[in-house]
């Protein structure tokens, strides 16, 4: 019995380790499930192994790890969960003939024409319109921006601002903050509150995002929050001590609140394996990505030809049995980005309410 190795290069130590580990967790869960009944590809039986290397969020280390994964471990696919690492890996992945599973929502990851890249999370811009719709009508037209200042949050706000204005709203304050580094958000939050917004646009890692929301409330803010998708509402609620503080918040439905049967089944499975912890969307999407990659290998009949595997990825996602697709990935777009029908969640009366992004789209 041979081994299919799938590589991982991401942060496993340092400040971003938590994130890196969630990603890895999802991948390993998928591998364990696959290994329960060995796969057959091209007449041979295989088991799957995830080879994880730490790159400390450092792009040059990602470059080294990629080489190591391909050459020492013969991995046909490598998953990288941060944009810097993805861009660094794209300098060599085509030459190395390795499939790059890019877990970054930045459209640039697929827009530069790399032929062996698959972008796992969906394009965030699809969330913008429903978020605006959900909050503007109920709370008002004045928004203040107080999101994080890293690349993803910047891209988000750059797309969000014109959309809000196009919908007839007004941006009354624009004040990004360093969510990972700041010792205190009080001054920054009071600065945006001073502009008397109806809606506050926030988001970065879940926990600091929750702090920002909490401090806004402490400073007397009564309006709604638009939460960019990096922050998970369920994780935020743990920090704020329940959903009451987050009343009026709009964001992506966390896995734990997704009531579609496949998602519920996945969440239950995950909780069982992880001492009752809830899975995040990182877990679910990367879990799906590993299943899809193996499925694509089956379709292509090869475990090593990255080009052939890449060609089958779209099909693989489409045909993936629901139990392996808790994040509802519907396929890939022309450039290799995933298409997902997510649920938009809003907090109403201290409870999460969900609505499908495209209500007419059929689930699996």
């Amino acid at each position, binding site marked *: 019995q041979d081994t299919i190795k799938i590589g991982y290069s991401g942060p496993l*130590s*340092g*400040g971003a*380790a*938590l*994130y*890196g*580990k969630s990603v890895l967790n999802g991948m390993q869960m998928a591998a364990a499930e696959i290994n329960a009944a060995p796969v057959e590809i091209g007449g041979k039986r295989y088991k799957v192994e995830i080879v994880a290397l730490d790159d400390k969020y450092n792009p040059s280390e990602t470059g080294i790890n990629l080489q190591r994964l391909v050459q020492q471990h013969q991995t046909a696919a490598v998953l990288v969960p941060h944009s810097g690492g993805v861009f660094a890996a794209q300098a060599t992945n085509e030459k190395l003939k390795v499939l790059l599973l890019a877990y970054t929502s930045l459209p640039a990851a697929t827009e530069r024409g790399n032929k062996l890249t698959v972008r796992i999370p969906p394009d965030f811009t699809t969330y913008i319109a429903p978020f605006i719709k959900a909050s503007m009508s109920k709370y008002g037209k004045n928004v203040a921006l107080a999101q994080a*200042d890293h690349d993803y949050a910047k891209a988000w706000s750059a797309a969000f601002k014109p959309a809000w204005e196009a919908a007839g709203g007004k941006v009354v304050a624009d*004040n*990004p*903050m*360093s969510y990972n*580094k*700041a*010792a*205190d958000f*009080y*001054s*920054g939050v*009071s*600065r945006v509150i*001073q502009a008397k917004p109806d809606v506050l646009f926030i988001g970065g*890692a*879940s*926990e*600091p995002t929750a*702090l920002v929301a909490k401090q806004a409330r*402490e*400073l*007397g803010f009564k309006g709604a929050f638009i939460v960019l998708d990096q922050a998970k509402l369920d994780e935020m609620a*743990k*920090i704020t001590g329940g959903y009451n503080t987050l009343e009026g918040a709009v964001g992506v439905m966390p896995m734990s609140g997704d009531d579609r049967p496949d998602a519920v089944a996945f969440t239950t499975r995950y909780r069982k394996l992880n001492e009752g912890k809830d899975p995040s969307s990182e877990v679910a999407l990367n879990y799906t990505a590993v299943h899809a990659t193996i499925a694509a290998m089956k379709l292509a009949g090869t475990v090593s030809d990255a080009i052939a595997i890449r060609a089958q990825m779209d099909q693989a996602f489409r045909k993936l049995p629901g139990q392996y697709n808790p994040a509802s990935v519907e396929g890939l777009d022309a450039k290799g980005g995933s298409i997902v029908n997510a649920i938009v969640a809003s907090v109403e009366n201290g409870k999460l309410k969900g609505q499908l992004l495209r209500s007419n789209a059929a689930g699996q």
Partner: protein
Amino acid sequence: MELFLQQVLNGLTLGGVYCLVALGLTLVYGILHVPNFAHGAFYMAGAYAAFFLIERLGFNYWLAMAGAAVAVALLSVLAERLVFHPLRNAPYLHHMIASIGILLFLESGAQALWGADFHRMATPYSQILSFGDVTLPAQRLLIIVAAFVLVLLLQLFLKKTITGATIVAMAQNRDGAALVGIDANRVAMLTFAIAGVLAAMAAVLYAPINLVYSSMGHLVITKAFVIIVLGGMGSVPGAIASGLIIGFAESFGAFYISTDYKDIIAFVLLVAILSLRPEGLFRKGAY
């Protein structure tokens, strides 16, 4: 006006925490004569210790703070015994590298023990006080009051007690201190213990309005460095004054200038001041 007052309160909160961390750092600097990068890790350890005591063992907040103070004092003393004491005659570069070694160890140790997650520490003081339009969560008031009481106690201890004087004496001449009968090892340990206690208390005071995670010490320690350099290395009053200066600069800077560039403010301030006054703001005087 309310907004101005609000920033004053924010500045006091930040400045108070910075002061506590910087004071420990400046005391240890007196003994080691080198910047101890591991001090930020002690701060982090203090938060984790209290978190553990509250969440797992069900201690109340104040007991947990005391427990954390003891735990970090021990940790700090251990670092002195095992690492800095053997290095006492080495050049300062070696201390810096060794302290980075301790930092890496403690941070990854915390991560291995408690995972990389963000944790939240509960506080019994979650009510929000308001004075007119100025709001102040009780915990923030607690920080301000506690920080200033601690600073005052420390200052009295150093100035008025003979044990305090031994710390200052050790800082100025280790051999000289030994020759008048001061037990150099004991004072070194005492100093590290005090620094540890201050760091732990700062962390436990501050953690409830922030998060507990393994790299939480980074920014605080960098700021603390700025503060002790501004205050004149090893000077206690200097550290207090510049702790407040940085606290206010950040709070007002973030509000009136830009949040985006808030973190730069402390550094730019230092660069500007040292360019004009290379010896820092407060020259060391006689005790």
